[in-house]
């Protein structure tokens, strides 16, 4: 286990370094110039050049990379040259919306997908199973954007149960209203993610249904349901946990769409805005922190995998 952990940690660090280089280089390929964006279309070319020098965007890419990464390593992400705001502070503020949204959504998605997926597998030859499959297929096909708009129209505009958009002005200082404003976005995300997850749960369960050990369990006198719940679910959980790890990344992409539809001041919106403004100094730190979060989640899932599956514990 120790060797496994050490090996896995080294891999994590290498991935982080690689991610930082990739993020830095890819952003430099984007056409556009922050100095011109700041100065606008009325500014003189001399003023733009002066600004470029002040921002340091006229330095060599290597110098800029080292300057940035040494700040990141020491925990100082610096300030956005455009807004003057602390990049770390702003990202933390936005993540205080996005992280609860993502957690809320993933919990809902699991609560929805796991029972429905097992049921769909158990009943796969019957009509009910087919109905669940078809519904999940529709869930995958319908765009998140549209689901969000429809939910907003029904539950906010018509029924006035929940806010149509936005986050309270005082944020989490109004916990009730803050939670309320996350309900529709989280349901929207959960429907999309849950539909995908349901497919995996269903096929993983179907697979274990045909395993020899499940037949043995039934031969020992367990009913099909008992065998499935006692032995099948734990085995099926292995592949589902791996899929969940992968879904964290797609969840972030979904969050960008949902934050736009519901106008939530989250990390997705922040990224879109900063990329649009070519505020590369801010974007590269934001992307790196988010990639780190995904990589660390992957690492955690790997470790969790080991803990769930005793067969893997001895392996390296």
């Amino acid at each position: 286990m120790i060797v496994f952990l050490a090996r896995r940690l080294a891999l994590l660090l290498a991935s982080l370094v690689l991610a930082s280089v990739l993020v830095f280089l890819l952003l430099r390929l984007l056409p556009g110039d922050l100095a011109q964006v700041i100065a606008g279309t009325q500014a003189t070319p001399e003023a733009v050049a002066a600004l470029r020098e002040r921002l340091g965007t006229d330095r060599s890419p290597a110098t800029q990379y080292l300057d940035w990464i040494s700040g990141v390593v020491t925990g100082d992400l610096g300030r956005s040259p455009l807004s003057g705001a602390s990049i770390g502070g702003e990202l933390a503020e936005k993540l205080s919306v996005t992280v609860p949204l993502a957690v809320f959504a993933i919990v809902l998605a699991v609560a929805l997908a796991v029972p429905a997926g097992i049921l769909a597998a158990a009943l796969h030859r019957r009509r009910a199973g087919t109905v669940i499959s078809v519904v999940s297929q529709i869930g995958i096909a319908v765009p998140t954007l549209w689901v969000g708009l429809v939910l907003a129209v029904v539950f906010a505009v018509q029924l006035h149960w929940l806010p149509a958009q936005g986050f309270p002005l005082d944020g989490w200082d109004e916990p009730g209203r803050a939670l309320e404003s996350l309900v529709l976005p989280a349901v929207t995300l959960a429907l999309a993610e849950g539909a995908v997850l349901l497919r995996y749960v269903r096929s993983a369960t179907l697979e274990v249904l045909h395993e020899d050990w499940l037949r043995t369990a039934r031969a020992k006198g367990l009913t099909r349901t008992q065998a499935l719940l006692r032995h099948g679910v734990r085995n099926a959980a292995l592949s589902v946990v791996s899929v969940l790890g992968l879904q964290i990344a797609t969840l972030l992409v979904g969050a960008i769409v949902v934050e736009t539809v519901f106008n939530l001041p989250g990390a997705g919106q922040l990224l879109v805005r900063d990329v649009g403004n070519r505020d590369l100094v801010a974007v590269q730190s934001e992307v790196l922190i988010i990639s780190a979060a995904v990589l660390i989640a992957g690492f955690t899932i790997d470790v969790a995998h080991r803990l769930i599956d005793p067969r893997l514990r001895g392996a390296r």
Partner: protein
Amino acid sequence: MSALRRLTGLAALSLAATLALTSCGSDDGDSTGNSGRANPDATVTVRLRLEPTSLDLTTVAGAALDQVLLDNVYQGLLTRDADDKIVPALASDYVVAPDGLSYTFTLDPEATFHDGSPVTAADVVWSYERVLDPTSTNPNKADFTKVASVTAPDEKTVRITLKQRDSNFTYGLTNRAGVVYKKGATGLADSENGTGPFTLEKWQRGASLTLARYEKYRGDKAKAAKVVFRYIPDDNAANNATLSGDIDALTALDPKLLPPYQSNQDFTIQEGVASDKLVLGFNNSSGPLKDVRVRRAIRQAIDKDGFIKSYGEGVRIGGPVAPTDPWYDKSLTSIDEYDPAAAKKLLAEAGVSNLKLSLTVANFYPSLYAEYVASQLEQVGITVQIKSVPFASWLDSVYTKADYQLSIVDHAEARDIANWANPKYYFRYDNKAVQKLVADAGLAATDAERDDLLKQAAKQVSEDAASDFLSGGQIHTVLRKGVEGFPKNSTSSRLNVVNLSKP
């Protein structure tokens, strides 16, 4: 492009659903407004589309900053009233010397900064010298090009001397360059110490900006206790927010989204004009568009009335001047009138056939702009390839490098005809006669003389087909019943909310 269109289609579908649902649920009968009873404790919420990237007017460009900060939080010596007339703000009065080379301003003795300290001539001198500094990166530095010096003969008097007469100087003073900061002010990116009727209470980045009434304001105080600007870039989210009661006013709304409000008793719609000129830019210095016959053919091939009708708002302009500018001349709309047959003839004369042109356009504009132009040009045998790019890319390729053939840009700034007198501007249009007319207009002794010269310049620009002008700005504002005092004109560039109120 097709993915984009698909999203728009879906959005339209959901809007239709909203429409159908609201029209049957909104007649609660209580819409007899009690107008005129402004509640002094009210908070009025206004939806805006674009958020400022910073609050620092001295370094960061963008109409989103001017829109909320000018007049409300910050003021200059002069400002403009609802009819676009230049009127005093921090100056109570001013005198222009007969030679037009010196301006003497008397400061309003009651004027204070939000920290309570009086506004002095030293503050004005400090603020203006920052703009004039050779290393200054003020986006509106050009407004002070003719300034020779700024001095303070006494504590409440400011004298500005010019190197040359400048008929646009007082107008420039009403914009950003003229804003007065407290001497030594810092931290402008996220805090303020202005002189206007509102203080900045809170800026929640990515969501909203809240202004609160400045109780010690010297003049007429703000009617509402607070004005909250909520930044909602997506039109459908804004619609839902308004219909569910979160928003009191929406301005510069896409005309396609107006119908649900037109048929809803709870809202009124206000119409105004704006300084915007929707320009089809030509690269005058390279490729097929170097030939004036090709440019004229393109102008004749595009039906501007049809464009305004299918977009849903706008006015005909015909030249580089919006109806809000004093030198607007309606007769320019008759130059190169819509005539596809004549366009084809001109193209044949120019010896071009099977012309293929690229149209580079920033992706935040409605896709209809580019699609309309492309379909009209197709009728006369010109194939247009639309390149929709992010604004930062547009700035780089089109604006800075002039690496383009056609582009569509909303030139929102008022009184910006000088762009057509600058051969380095992205149009790369170089006509010495126009440049002289614009320069002479700057030196004109009277407004009438200036306006006459600029009318001649505008006519020449149009006759040279330096650009095509799809439409001039029109603004629709949706107000919840009882909301009053919302400005009518040019609300995207300047939004004075001192009189905004609700019952």
